[in-house]
């Protein structure tokens, strides 16, 4: 893969997501002890991915697919410290929407 791609572009390329939400929550965690020596504003992320590449895969396997794409960022000193993931298939996303519409 070309060096100029960003990790998020890698996700888009590899998983062809129908939904890709990336939330940078770093500011919420900047006071944490583990962050006291960090000046990075990109440490805590919350990512929601809907992709049919997750079909027939259990959650741990889905998360590992994403972790593999972000391997370098996660391993790098001062890189991503925490990554919250929601990994769904489009079918699961539809069901979730239905439930939300019905329940609330």
């Amino acid at each position, binding site marked *: 893969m070309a060096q100029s791609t960003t990790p998020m572009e890698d996700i888009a390329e590899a998983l062809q997501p129908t939904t890709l939400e990336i939330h940078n929550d770093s500011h919420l965690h900047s006071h*944490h002890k583990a962050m006291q020596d960090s000046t990075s504003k990109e440490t805590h992320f919350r990512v929601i991915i809907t992709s049919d590449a997750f079909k027939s895969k259990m959650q741990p396997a889905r*998360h590992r697919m994403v972790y593999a794409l972000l391997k370098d960022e996660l391993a790098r000193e001062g890189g991503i410290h*925490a990554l*919250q993931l929601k990994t769904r298939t489009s079918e699961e996303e539809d069901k979730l929407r239905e439930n939300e519409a019905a329940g609330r």
Partner: protein
Amino acid sequence: MFSKRAFPSAFRAATRAARPLPSAATAPRFVTPFQVRLLSTEVRTAIDKAVASAPVVLFMKGTPETPQCGFSRATIQILGMQGVDPEKFTAFNVLEDNDLRQGIKEYSEWPTIPQLYLEKEFVGGCDIVMTMHQDGSLAKMLEEKGVVLPAEGETPSEPPQ
């Protein structure tokens, strides 16, 4: 909710098991940051033992009483709400041992803490435990493995603050 008394003893047992992990000082070959860190046989064996030390094992930051990270805190709270039997549970504080902290990531092929194991099988991290808690599959799984306390007239209380 977890009984306050059962936990510290469970945790001490855990830290004893983790102690044989070799310290970084005894493995000076691995000091360069650019080298790929390989999981040594000793660390792998120690983690094997840790994973097998109880039916429910959590690798976390801090202790069940004083978690040092919100994701570890959330996970321990969920296990408490599920009524996991403290006798069948062990927590390992990865902040106490850097070999464990790095080693568990490779061992589980999972880059973040906390990590939950049930009968030596990797279940997931905080997000997965949370999702499974919400959709009921965690309760089902824990029940099937017989690791929850029997509900005895005690109404489930609110999650510990």
